[in-house]
């Protein structure tokens, strides 16, 4: 199989190069002969650009715009990532998990992915979690664009940017220039509303204020592991409810920005996971995020730009798990995460041929607390028949990072980028990670990048301290060492005219001291450092804009990681194929449709494999005006062909005693959304 794929790859690559060299010169009238008046009447092809900025970045970057979010009807970041080359997400009816570069070990809370809002790190300090589902702190409709960076590419990021970093850039008041009211209704009694106001005042102050709320009754689901009359033949009712509230505010003046966001989501737990009583709506989980971020950028001298930032973050997790001890009691699982910090970055462009960056970031983790108890005054921990809580772990700490980078233009078309980052924290000794990159433009429209980067991730409070007794015990591991990764990558990007872009990349990486959850000899779960894991992969992407205003993006990712590195399960598929196509309908942008298809290869389960699946989503958008006051209406159908498919979520703690390997995912669902700008 591999050999045929590789043969096909080599053939296609040959074809691509042929295509690029045979690209015909475009016959055009000489526009410079036209007067200004004439030029003002010339119609241009699609207004959207490829973000050329991406070309010189020392990494393989994907940029997703607000228009993309609109025309494909995406409801959260997980749906965005599903369309992005090399990414894949799974859902256990609680969180969404991102697989990247062939890595998707069940039980990992996206701790190897850095998720930022306007450069602010949203990963909490207990689970290091990148929240890409509905619990994400920001409403997706407030996003201007998303930059997705693969690999340990930049020294600016540090910590969690192990496999990649996602930076969500929020919209500006200037662009909104007024209010927006949005309401949507979808499958399973899902309703969402949003009210946003944004504008730029005459004194240059830019402001945004927004509230969003969602309520969903969820579905009645069937779980074959509970197929018994005593457990309603495996059917749940009312156990899949979801609700969230989100607030966002931003003020900007000159180089100063103050931003705050708050989000609280509560989700029912219908799956019977964690040994909970099946089909009881009383089991639920709440995730609450709060962020405050102040930053200032100023020009401080010839070719010197200084950015300073101070931030505060809080994350609370509260799980209410109904456990039949008996009697049925609520086991309460809590995490309190609090942190603040400062960042400073100086960008120097004053020396010919150099762009230098030096910076530091410091974060103080004031709370990294994890608590677990039974809500029963007599026995606070039934599992070990104790009157004290099952877990009461209080932790705090800090981390410091220093970094320096220099981009040297050796020649007009050749750039060398080198950086060093030093990190230390209360759980990891100081260490230095280098990154090197060569960026070469053999021709104007071609970029070749050779990249090497190393990164590390310190064990988090959950991996170090979470201990829970009982029938399915988990034991903390204070002796964990940080895990490290070395990645080498080659990227080729080619523009064919202004309308076609193709990109091919290949990477190899090696992880040392991989932190992964394993079963100990006593049967408890514990995070342990595992020896070397090696991975590699190949990605290919093409993007084409058509004169009609249509756009096509298609990609393939082939990734090679053992199914069971060191015996631990990895449920990442070997191949991912995606295609996204959006086009105006009836000859204008008033009507647009966006169609996407995703193929996910088979995945490893504890006992074998689950089959591949292909999903398709479609959205029709009506927007009589793209700017200014007016309405907008969209209808989206997700999983258009009602494909029945499974994702890997092993669970041996079910009360039915039947081990679970996979969870069925949603069939066809829909959403109708109305928006009015005023």
């Amino acid at each position: 199989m591999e050999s045929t794929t590789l043969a096909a790859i080599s053939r296609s690559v040959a074809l691509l190069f042929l295509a690029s060299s045979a690209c015909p010169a475009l016959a055009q009238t000489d526009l410079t002969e036209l007067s200004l008046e004439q030029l003002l009447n010339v119609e241009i092809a699609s207004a959207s650009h490829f973000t050329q900025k991406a070309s010189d970045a020392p990494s393989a970057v994907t940029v997703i715009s607000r228009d993309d979010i609109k025309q494909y009807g995406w409801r959260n970041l997980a749906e965005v990532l599903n369309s992005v080359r090399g990414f894949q997400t799974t859902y256990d009816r609680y969180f969404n998990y991102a697989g990247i570069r062939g890595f998707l070990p069940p039980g990992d809370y996206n701790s190897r992915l850095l998720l930022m809002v306007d450069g602010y790190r949203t990963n909490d300090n207990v689970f290091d979690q990148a929240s890409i589902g509905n619990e994400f702190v920001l409403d997706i409709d407030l996003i201007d664009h998303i930059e997705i960076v693969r690999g340990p590419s930049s020294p600016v990021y540090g910590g969690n940017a192990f496999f990649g970093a996602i930076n969500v850039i929020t919209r500006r008041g200037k662009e909104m220039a007024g209010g927006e009211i949005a309401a949507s209704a979808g499958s399973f009694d899902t309703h969402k509303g949003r009210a946003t106001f944004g504008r730029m005042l005459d004194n240059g102050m830019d402001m945004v204020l927004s509230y969003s709320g969602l309520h969903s009754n969820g579905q009645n689901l069937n779980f074959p592991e509970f197929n018994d009359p005593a457990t309603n033949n495996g059917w749940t009712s009312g156990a899949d409810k979801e609700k969230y509230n989100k607030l966002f505010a931003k003020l900007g003046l000159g180089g100063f920005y103050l931003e705050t966001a708050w989000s609280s989501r509560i989700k029912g737990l219908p799956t019977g996971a964690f040994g909970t009583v099946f089909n009881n709506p009383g089991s639920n989980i709440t995730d609450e995020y709060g962020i405050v971020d102040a930053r200032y950028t100023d020009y401080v001298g010839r070719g010197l730009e200084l950015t300073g930032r101070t931030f505060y973050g809080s994350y609370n997790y509260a799980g209410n798990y109904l456990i039949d001890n008996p009697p049925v009691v609520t086991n309460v699982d809590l995490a309190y995460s609090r942190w603040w910090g400062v960042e400073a970055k100086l960008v120097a462009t004053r020396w010919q041929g150099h762009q230098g960056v030096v910076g530091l970031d410091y974060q103080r983790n004031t709370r990294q607390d994890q608590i677990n108890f039974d809500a029963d005054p007599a026995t606070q921990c039934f599992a070990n028949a104790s009157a004290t809580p099952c877990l009461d772990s209080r932790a705090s700490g800090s981390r410091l990072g220093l970094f320096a980078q220099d981009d040297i233009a050796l020649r007009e078309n050749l750039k060398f980028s080198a950086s060093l980052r030093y990190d230390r924290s209360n759980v990891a000794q100081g260490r230095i990670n280098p990154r090197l990159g060569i960026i070469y433009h053999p021709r104007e429209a071609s970029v070749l990048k050779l990249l090497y980067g190393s990164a590390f991730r310190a064990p988090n409070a959950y991996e170090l301290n979470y201990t829970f007794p009982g029938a399915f015990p988990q034991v903390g591991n204070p002796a964990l060492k940080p895990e490290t990764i070395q990645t080498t990558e080659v990227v080729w990007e080619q523009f064919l005219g202004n309308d076609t872009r193709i990109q091919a990349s290949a990477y190899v990486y090696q992880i040392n001291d991989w932190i992964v959850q394993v079963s100990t000899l006593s049967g408890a779960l514990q995070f342990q450092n595992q020896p070397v894991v090696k991975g590699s992969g190949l990605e290919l992407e093409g993007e084409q804009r058509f004169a009609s205003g249509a756009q096509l993006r298609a990609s393939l990712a082939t990734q090679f990681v053992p199914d069971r590195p060191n015996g631990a399960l990895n449920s990442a598929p070997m191949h991912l194929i995606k295609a996204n196509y959006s086009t105006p309908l009836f000859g204008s942008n008033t009507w647009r449709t966006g169609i996407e298809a995703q193929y996910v290869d088979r995945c490893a389960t504890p006992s074998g494999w689950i089959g591949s699946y292909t999903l398709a989503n479609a959205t029709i958008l009506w927007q009589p005006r793209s700017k200014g006051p007016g309405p907008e209406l969209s209808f989206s159908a997700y999983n258009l062909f009602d494909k029945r498919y499974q994702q890997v979520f092993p669970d041996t703690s079910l009360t039915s005693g039947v081990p679970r390997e996979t969870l069925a995912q949603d069939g066809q669902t829909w959403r109708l959304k109305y928006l009015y700008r005023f």
Partner: protein
Amino acid sequence: MRFLPSIFFALFGLLFALPIMAMEQDEAAVKAAFVYNFTKFVEWPSEASGPLQLCLLGNTDPLLAALLKLEGKQSQGQNIQVRSVDRDAGSLGGCRVIVVGTSEAERIAAILNNSQKQPALTVSEIDHFADAGGMIGLVVNNAKVQFEIDAQAVQRANLKLSAQLLKLAQKVKK
């Protein structure tokens, strides 16, 4: 389904081997033509002597690439010289027109601060350029290119724009 990837690769190759069809006018070429026209309507102060230098600042993007083709064209009886400038402020000397590329969106303030010492017209397609202190911002509305002018910024640099140009601007900030 295991052979799907091979098919995909083949289709993929084919897709991009197709010749690119004739299209509506290329946005970058239209914008470059605007920039060329602007050079005809600017009056520089007398100390700005020498050739009509058009300086490009930023990583190559479609507009900057299209502007390279203006080299040698005539404007106000002079030959246009197109020059790519590194980010270093020192080399902006002699620029009569500075076009700021999209790659520089985050450092507009610093660039404009530097270019203030120059009697040069600043032009860019970066969003809100004319609000951020730039002189002429190119914007796209309903698939047509328009421009906004910050008359104050023009005045500060001791430049004069013809009334015709101001009349055709979509917005003039005074």
